């Protein structure tokens, strides 16, 4: 059992908390499916950790909503915020359930994951080849979102996973990248990372 920490109130705007809950829960789904698809236990464990983070955010958001409610009118206006936050929390729980399939050694039938890999067009994993032109580049410089509708959601480096890497993260050789996005962009990016394509097109 993980030790549960006491949650202290922090003055963070409710909107910020909710946006982070939304983004994290959606990211977690993609990471969790990647963990199943590529049978990666460590990545699955990181998803479980993110689930704790979303729980904390949910508590903080609840506190914000409570503090902002002074009368019945406020309550009516804010009940939607609580409902949406609780839905985002449920989505993150669902992602944790996916991850638990991997951490509990249940797994998905290997033939199924083989076929699934072929049809899943939004997620990919690639190892960065030393000859790839993205080696040494900042994520920001690659401008993947604008160029090909792709974003890197995790990097495996020296036995650690960097989840949702920042713009100023530099790509290194032998990094294992997990990316999501438009199918055509995903293929292009995989070729770039594996050094099979040498030009970054605009």
């Amino acid at each position, binding site marked *: 059992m993980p030790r549960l920490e006491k949650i202290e109130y922090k003055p963070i705007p409710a*909107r910020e908390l909710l946006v982070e809950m*939304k983004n994290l829960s959606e990211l977690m789904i993609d990471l969790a499916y990647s963990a199943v698809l590529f049978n990666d236990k460590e990545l699955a464990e990181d998803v479980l950790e993110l689930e704790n983070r979303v729980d904390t955010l949910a508590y903080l958001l609840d506190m914000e909503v409570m503090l902002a409610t002074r009368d019945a009118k406020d309550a009516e206006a804010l009940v939607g915020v609580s409902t949406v936050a609780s839905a985002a929390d449920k989505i993150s729980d669902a*992602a944790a359930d996916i991850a638990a399939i991997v951490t509990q050694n249940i797994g998905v039938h290997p*033939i199924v994951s083989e076929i699934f890999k072929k049809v899943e067009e939004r997620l990919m994993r690639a190892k960065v080849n030393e000859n790839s032109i993205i080696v040494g580049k900042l994520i920001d410089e690659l401008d993947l979102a604008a160029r090909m509708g792709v974003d890197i959601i995790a990097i495996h480096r020296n036995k650690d996973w960097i989840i949702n890497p920042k713009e100023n993260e530099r790509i290194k050789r032998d990094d294992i990248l997990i990316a999501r996005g438009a199918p055509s962009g995903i293929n292009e990016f995989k070729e770039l990372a594996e050094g099979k394509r040498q030009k970054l097109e605009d």
Partner: protein
Amino acid sequence: MSNKQQKKFEEIVERFVELKDTSELMIDLAYSSLLLNSKELAEEVQRLEEYVDKLHTDFELLVLSSKFKKEEARGFLGLIRLGVVTEKISDAAAEIAEVVLRGIEPHSVLKLSIEEAEETVTHVRVNEKSSLVNKTLREARIPEETGMWVLAIRRGAKCIRPKPDSKIEVGDVLIASGYADGEEDLKKLASPSFSQLP
């Protein structure tokens, strides 16, 4: 592995991918319904929630009726659990959409995106005279032509998350958002006789 087995596995994956795609599309549509305060989109989410229930039952029956060996049981259990998760996700999306359907005034906290929220949501049916028929979304260039962005394609009971390679068919309903003046252009493009209707 026999051909028959391979086919069975392919069918299982195909069903699962539809469940997964539909549940994720529902999250997108649910948040969009909130952002645009669109009852129409929220109702689509509710409709899809029922559709996912049905898909999920079919998926479970398919998995359970596969003749698997004892040592394969864990792999099939994993599949059953994945199915349950897609249903949980679709329920959560439906809860978000419910906020819109209950007419709760969208609180400023719920403006989750920096996009303009003054956009409208519309749906148009593609008729046989439309130049969109048999084109992929990439070829159709709908945003360039009309300023409208396709959020989903409804085809019968299914709802498809739009991809550049998705092909538009006669009878498809395009669910799109954008500024109100693009609505008329989209209708003309999808149902060319629309302007002549009384």
